[in-house]
């Protein structure tokens, strides 16, 4: 399959989603990073800033999607398109967060009730059995809740990009639409996110490794003496500070990537579920068969 420059993108597999998102981020590195910095600064302002920050994040995803669908737009154009919905982003964002929290509580409640027989059986069988069954219940409940929350997150993942891309739909419909688009594709979305985290692992690892390396020389001193020296405490403080700074820097670099993942997933799901890439190509007239006139 020779890839002509103009050929539309085929439905992608999980790994391709991540690779495409990275190359999308790379080609727009400056723009997306700048926007992301802006949004991080806005997030420091309460309420209005949160809405603005969320909107700018969605703007990154929108810019990415427009580029994928070969209708690129400038930063200002996209801003004009989504600015009327500024408060919607915060409102629906809160709603999505509430849904996720509610589902988490509901699932943990349900699973706890289901696992009650195990704890009763366990407590009947002596102390060791009680402890073991208690541990088992906790692990099962946590695992199920974690899976349910991941699942919900995957199914609702696209809400902000839908808000940014589809001005004609009702704001709350964005949640339904994300659910509808990801139907039958939840696993694909989850795996894409998993691979995305895996690919970003080196950067996350850096934020852990460097502070530990800084703290290491002081740890010995701390363990030996009862009263920690001022130098050791200062060293630990420095390590903590470095960790915070690195975490912020890394998240500034990775956040746009998770928005471009969103662009690619949204494009891919719309091409799978709605066939947006199935279009007859515009063609110059002279390529057609000569007609008898």
């Amino acid at each position, binding site marked *: 399959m020779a890839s002509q420059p103009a050929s539309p993108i085929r439905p992608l597999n999980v*790994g*391709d989603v991540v*690779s495409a998102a*990275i190359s999308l981020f790379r080609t727009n590195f400056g723009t997306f990073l700048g926007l992301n910095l802006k949004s991080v600064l806005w997030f420091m302002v309460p309420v209005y800033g949160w809405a603005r920050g969320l909107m700018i994040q969605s703007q990154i995803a929108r810019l990415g999607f427009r580029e994928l669908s070969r209708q690129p737009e400038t930063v200002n154009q996209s801003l004009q398109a989504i600015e009327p919905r500024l408060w919607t982003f915060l409102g629906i964002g809160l709603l999505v967060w509430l849904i996720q929290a509610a589902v988490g509580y509901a699932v943990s409640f349900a699973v706890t009730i289901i696992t009650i027989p195990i704890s009763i059986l366990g407590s009947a069988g002596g102390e060791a059995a009680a402890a073991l069954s208690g541990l088992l219940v906790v692990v099962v409940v946590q695992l199920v809740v974690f899976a349910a929350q991941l699942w919900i997150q995957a199914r609702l993942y696209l809400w902000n990009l839908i808000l940014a891309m589809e001005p004609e739909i009702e704001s709350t419909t964005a949640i339904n639409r994300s659910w509808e688009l990801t139907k039958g594709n939840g696993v694909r979305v989850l795996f894409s996110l998993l691979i995305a985290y895996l*690919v970003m692992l*080196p950067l996350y690892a850096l934020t852990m490794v460097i502070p530990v390396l800084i703290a290491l020389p002081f740890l010995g001193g701390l363990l030996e003496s009862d009263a920690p020296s001022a130098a050791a405490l200062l060293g630990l403080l420095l390590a903590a500070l470095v960790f915070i700074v690195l975490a912020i820097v890394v998240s500034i670099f990775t956040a746009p990537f998770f928005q471009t993942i969103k662009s690619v997933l949204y494009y891919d799901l719309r091409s*799978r579920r709605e066939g947006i*890439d199935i279009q*007859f190509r515009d063609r110059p007239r002279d390529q057609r068969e000569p007609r008898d006139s």
Partner: protein
Amino acid sequence: MSLFKTISIQTPESVELEFTLAGIGNRALALLVDYLLVFLLLSLVAIFSAFLSEQLTSVFLALGGDADGLNLWLTAIALLATAAIYGGYFVGFETYWQGQTPGKRWTKIRVINDNGKPEGVFQATLRALLRPVDDILFLGFFCIIFSHQEKRLGDWLAGTLVVQSETVVGEAQVKISPAAQTLAADLMEQAQIGNLLPDDFATLRAYLLRRQVMTTAARKQLSVQLAQQLQAMIELSELPQAEMPAEQFLEAIYVAYQQQFGDRRRAY
């Protein structure tokens, strides 16, 4: 902008081959799958050898031997076995599956020689030897991300590329309703099927293959839109039947085009 890097290789016979590079996402996923499998394999071996060494030691002691010396030997064998599994898994699979491991097969990628030939034992071994180096501090990851040909150190040394393996697209057949079959004959007489280009046929085929997984609303809307555009393209002034489902019309054009041009005008 192209999302995926491609590479052209000129074979000694001057044939130009084009490959799409595997991409970091596919390679990470393949590695994850492979490491999970290796981990499982190693745990199995560890459990088995722990069991075996205990038996051996008691037999040895019963025979009046020195347990310390035996333990040293057993540890050495276990270490060797671990290294052999870790390296052998990648070398073995890549050699016998022509550059694929279970993880790579699942993600549909493959290791090839820089000149387009299949990967050999020698190269598979070099890649496996350098794998730990690439994993330390994620060197391989940064090399893949930032190098033009997505090569990790092992790939540089062995002279290999990791590409998407083109699977034969013998995928699902387009389902054609009987009504569309008969309609196709009419269309061939009444319309200019010849106006369609291979590209248009490919689009039509893509729709017919992928319609099942689309949402109902989108499927309906798209089929009507495509049908209207096609009707104009093939210069059909009037539909053969007044009330006709758009999908049936599309299927009929698909059949008509195939019958008229068969293999001569393939889009791919």
